[in-house]
């Protein structure tokens, strides 16, 4: 019995998740106990319990069942996203919170998982190859549909996650470097367009060079270059036609330090919180930045600065270390898995976790623009936590079934 568990039960993921959830609960308690008597803490603890059960259940579902159901789940998720766009209640200017029996659920959290599973399921079909144009476009389409539905909410952060996750997935599926570059360069020019004409020209030039280096044939290079220019120029036009306040928001997004009391306020305060923590931190419930509520809704997207301020480099390093271990473990599961579906899905899950972790902590430390993305397992939010537990459960499942073809 014990040897069976040792062989097939993924203790590593279980330990990492539990450790991160506990750190998250401590930080949420600290950030909210004076605001609403730690009501958020109690709710999050409840969701952690529910999520834990879901995680264990998912880890025991037969792999074939998962693979078979993934397309169904994908279409359910798409349907839900459409329903929200039509009837969804608007919370903080974004239509993603689903009023379901009084519970706020965010379907885009689950759409990420179902999209990854659907992609993996499609690519792992025996007659499908990423190097065929038709199959490539179908697999890109699997990503594009939920991505645009989420962008229409509008939820920029989750859209970025979809985009970033696509890269390692295509890479793992065996896509050529040219395809990867073709997807990457339009982002580059779009950013260039937002920063100004000079940057735009530089980005176009770099893009052209990259496409040339990884070229396959003249036709595809021309198409990729055209798409890149079109996206860059349309961003440029969109920016010009925006209201001044919208432009201001974008410039604060790209350079928060310029307006420390306006749009960049959160980043400046977050950096002060983390920076003033020092090596050992200020101690539990003793972080002045946290307790004085300098950062609005710190328990959601800026939870990492509670860790940094109250538990210092020591605490923050442990959290980052756990995250790194989680990603490396997901990569290991993907590598040792004999099943193409679970291997690709593990890479997708690694991508989702990785994007969230890097953007969120990078944002808290002033390395990244402010994008509303929760930190996995730590940030307050039921649907986010449950979605993360589901992904952890999937990793456990893939580990247990790694020898299955």
């Amino acid at each position: 019995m014990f040897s069976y568990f040792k062989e097939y039960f993924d203790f590593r993921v279980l330990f990492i998740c539990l450790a991160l959830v506990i750190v998250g609960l401590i930080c949420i308690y600290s950030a909210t106990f004076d605001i609403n008597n730690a009501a958020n803490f109690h709710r999050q603890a409840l969701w952690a319990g529910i999520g834990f059960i879901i995680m264990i259940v998912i880890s025991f579902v037969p792999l074939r069942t998962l693979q078979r159901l993934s397309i169904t789940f994908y279409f359910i998720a798409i349907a839900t996203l459409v329903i929200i766009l039509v009837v969804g209640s608007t919370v903080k200017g974004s239509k993603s919170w689903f009023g379901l029996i009084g519970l706020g659920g965010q379907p885009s959290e689950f759409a990420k998982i179902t999209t990854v599973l659907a992609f993996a399921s499609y690519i792992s079909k025996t007659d499908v190859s990423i190097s065929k144009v038709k199959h490539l476009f179908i697999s890109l389409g699997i990503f594009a549909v939920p991505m645009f539905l989420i962008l229409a909410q509008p939820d920029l952060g989750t859209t970025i996650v979809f985009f970033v996750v696509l890269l390692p997935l295509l890479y793992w599926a065996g896509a050529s470097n040219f395809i990867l570059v073709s997807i990457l360069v339009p982002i580059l020019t779009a950013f260039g367009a937002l920063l100004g004409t000079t940057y735009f020209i530089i980005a176009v030039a770099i893009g052209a060079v990259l496409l040339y280096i990884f070229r396959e044939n003249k036709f595809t290079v021309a198409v990729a270059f055209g798409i890149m220019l079109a996206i860059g120029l349309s961003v440029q036009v969109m920016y010009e036609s925006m209201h001044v306040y919208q432009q201001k928001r974008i410039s604060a997004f790209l350079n928060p330090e310029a307006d420390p009391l306006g749009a960049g306020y959160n980043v400046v305060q977050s950096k002060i919180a983390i920076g003033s923590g020092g090596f050992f931190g200020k101690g539990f419930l003793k972080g002045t930045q946290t307790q004085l509520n300098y950062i609005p809704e710190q328990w959601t997207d800026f939870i990492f600065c509670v860790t940094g301020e109250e538990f210092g480099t020591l605490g923050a390093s442990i959290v980052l270390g756990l995250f790194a271990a989680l990603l490396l473990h997901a990569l290991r599961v993907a590598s040792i898995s004999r099943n193409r579906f679970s291997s690709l899905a593990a890479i997708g899950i690694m991508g989702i976790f990785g994007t969230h972790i890097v953007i969120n902590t990078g944002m808290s430390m002033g390395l990244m623009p402010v994008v509303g993305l929760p930190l996995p397992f730590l940030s307050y939010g039921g649907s986010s936590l449950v979605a993360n537990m589901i992904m952890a459960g999937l990793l456990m499942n893939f580990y247990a079934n790694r020898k299955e073809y």
Partner: protein
Amino acid sequence: MITDDKIDVSSRRRILTIVIIVVFAILFLRLYHLQLLSYSEFGKKSEENSVRVVIKEPVRGYMFDRNDRLVVDVGPAYTVTVTPASFDTNNLVFLSSLMQVDPAVIKERINRGRTYSRFSPVRILRDIDFKTLSKLEENLYLLPGVNYEVESKRLYPFGKCASHLLGYCKEITDEQLKQTGTVYQQGDLVGSSGLEASYETFLRGEKGYEFISVNSKGQLLGSLEEGRRDIPSKEGFDLILSIDFGLQAFAESLMTKYRGALVAIDPNDGGILAMVSKPDFDPAIFSGVTSSKVWTKLNTDPDKPLFNRATMTRYPPGSTFKMLIAAAALEEGIINERYRITCRGSFRFGNRIFKDVHVHGSVNVVQAIQKSCDVFFYQLILKVGLDKLNEYGRRFGFSKSTGIDIGEETSGLIPSAEYYDRVYGKDKWTQGNLVSLGIGQGEIGVSPLQMARYVAVFANNGTLIQPHAVNSIRNKRTNRIDIIDHKEIPVWLNYDVMRMIREGIRRVVEEPGGTGSLARISGIVSAGKTGTAQNPHGADHAWYVGFAPFDQPRIAIAVMLENAGYGGTKAAPIAGMVMEKYLFGELRRKVIKPVSAVIPRDTILLKTTEKGEH
């Protein structure tokens, strides 16, 4: 994967491992850069950080009476605050000597606040006087963490007047805080009785936020960016009441000797003109700081001054209930105008004898109301029966709440068959229980407010109005006035039925032999009915209900005086004077001195043996 030869798993794994390691190396380096290399810079920044948000309390809405006189005002109050994190507990004794309060009180409040947040100021003493304030100000530099803020408190230009109706605010309780979410903070005042409570959402306004620069000790340096980022507080809405405060004050002056209540209502729209409950309290004691001593005293007073007798008492209405019995019997066709009985001064039911005060001889329904003949109604209720009594009781608004906008009220009780089954047991009660209901005695319980609404039905020829104290709400920001709609329910009484009852109660006041002649208003015809409710615990409660002028009524009234004796001698003159004052704007009659007992008593107590059997 292994089957797919084209994909070299190990090389791809190596590349991705390198990507992960590089990305995390950047994150770790950034973390060390912030926390170890820039620690001194950020540590200092966090210490002198700088921006603090101060909540600006909104000015609570005012209240005006129907003639636009300001009746509930707002004035400044100085509140001492302590920030637990920066307060030196060695200063506790010094601070309490300045404030002249027990150190334990301050300590308890600081500790309570500390459990919420050590860094936000706790209000420890409200509404300090100017002398204390100046002493505090002189010593403020010795007391880090201590400060004061200007809040608003209630002022009452009319003094102790309409206290129960207006209500008061109290500090929010922990339970309320849990329920209301983020709207309130600890220490906030919240309307907790009367209009202050029921119109809390309109009165309270919206909190403002001010961004100020402070140093690490929390001392004020100045406003941030000249206040450009501040969000000003928004004033609460004003209430425009239906109350006439001149009339209210006059009515209160007539009631000072009594325990009881008076409700004057406009029978056309249901607006309360005056609502008195005696004994009362001074609402000003709640506007600043309320010591627990005062609070305990008010709460334990046997006269219950905090209790709104106008809406919360549940006494039998006595003979004032007879119109309802008559209305039920006439409307249902059980009797008609020609129906007469002969009153010999008592009524025998089974082996019990129910007495009347007088021998009225042969009376019809109009005369029975006029003379308040008990024997007539003893017999009538047996014909009407319990079910019809209940049906008509509900039609006239009894045994349910009136929906008045001041919140606290009793729904009262009209006993039904189920009620008797429950109290006495099935088949353990007889029709004999019914007899005393015929003259408004027994288990019937009504509030003075219900009675005013009931008599207004006869005033306005058949409409059950919705009593209310607020006519409209004024938004001072937009100057928009919203008039509140009130529902009116038709009682559906036949024209002839209404005419007969109105004639009966007109005669009560205007004709010789009526019991309500002391309510008479010279020059104006009015109608009314007296009542004397038996009370097993002491002297009778006196009732009077009425309205005036008879043809186009402008005021309907109910007066109830606890243990005062006869309705005709005690309650009727008060009702008459209040109506006279309202209709003429002044009192024309001389205040009537207590009258000798020549006025006929309208009801007698049931014999004690019967009472025992109830």
